[in-house]
């Protein structure tokens, strides 16, 4: 580039930037995550539909949506998916898995989550899945560790 001498050995630096932060959850996401902690998946009524995950506003009109939330699932149907063959350190599972849109029973919208199906051959659109709950839950989306094929092995 700008050196007249050939660079025979590349040198590199590694930097890590970290920010811990805390945010308030509000009247809809707070109860949603409280539900996850308690092992329940909640959505919100929006006119004649149920949105999962719940939102504070009608995505079409912007009107405020009012709690209380309604329980859905916990099982659902895979609407579409993408296979992650080489998970990174940040991914929810340390083995190949699918990111999927899962429409839970009783919901009208699908939520993104991981599906631990074992292999890509076990994945298909329309498959039934059910949550695998984390043993110790804290009120986070990953209180659901992932979804797994309903009825056990794929």
């Amino acid at each position, binding site marked *: *580039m*700008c*050196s*007249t*001498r050939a*660079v025979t050995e*590349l*040198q*590199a*630096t*590694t*930097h*890590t*930037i*970290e*920010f*811990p*932060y*805390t*945010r*308030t*959850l509000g009247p809809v*996401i*707070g*109860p949603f*995550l*409280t539900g996850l*902690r*308690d*092992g*329940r998946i909640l959505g919100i009524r929006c006119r004649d539909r149920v949105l999962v995950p719940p939102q504070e506003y009608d995505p079409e009109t912007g009107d405020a949506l009012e709690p209380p939330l309604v329980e859905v*699932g*916990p*099982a659902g149907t895979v609407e579409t998916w993408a296979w992650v063959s080489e998970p990174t350190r940040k991914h929810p599972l340390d083995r190949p898995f699918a990111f999927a849109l899962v429409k839970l*029973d009783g919901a009208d919208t699908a939520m993104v989550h991981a599906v631990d199906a074992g292999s890509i051959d076990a994945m298909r659109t329309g498959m039934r899945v*059910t*949550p695998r*709950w984390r*043993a*110790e*839950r*804290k*009120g*986070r989306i990953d209180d659901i560790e992932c979804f797994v094929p*309903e*009825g056990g092995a794929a």
Partner: protein
Amino acid sequence: MTAAKSDTAVTGDEPVTMMEYFMSLTYTDVVSPPVVRFREALMEGRLIAQQCPKCHLVYVPPKGYCPIDTIELDERNEIQLADRGVVTNYTIVTPVQYYGQKETEPFVRASILLDPPGGMLILQDILDIPTDEVRAGMRVEAVWAKPGERNVDEVGNRSGSALEGSLRGFRPTGEPDVPADSFSDKVW
């Protein structure tokens, strides 16, 4: 439905109102050739820079170009710098104990105008003197880490003047202070 509302332990039974999030980003940067040479010099206890042949500004660490004249710079534009100079301005930082803050006591970050051929090092620690005795115009000299204890692992393309692994900071020389008008055109 086969799934399971879990009957295992949960954390607390109060409503969840807050979310903790820990953002962490790790990236690796290949060090540019001028900075490779800068790192090699630091390991030898030397400061090098590049000087633009047109505007004569001194870039430390070397950049590989002059952004003002859009001229490429290389080893032919390299100069050796003095490792002593004068404090042109400084800040006393009172550390707030946010995440990642390692300092617990007030400390100084000073800009140092190096002796001819010049060059400005920013964000330098001032050692061996109480923070309230630091002043603009004070003559200082480099305090290098011992040869076997130097490292430049954190000196990259964007680390600027953060050189603590090799150049620990500057300390007073005891020489008389320099009048402000001798460096006032170089205060950042």
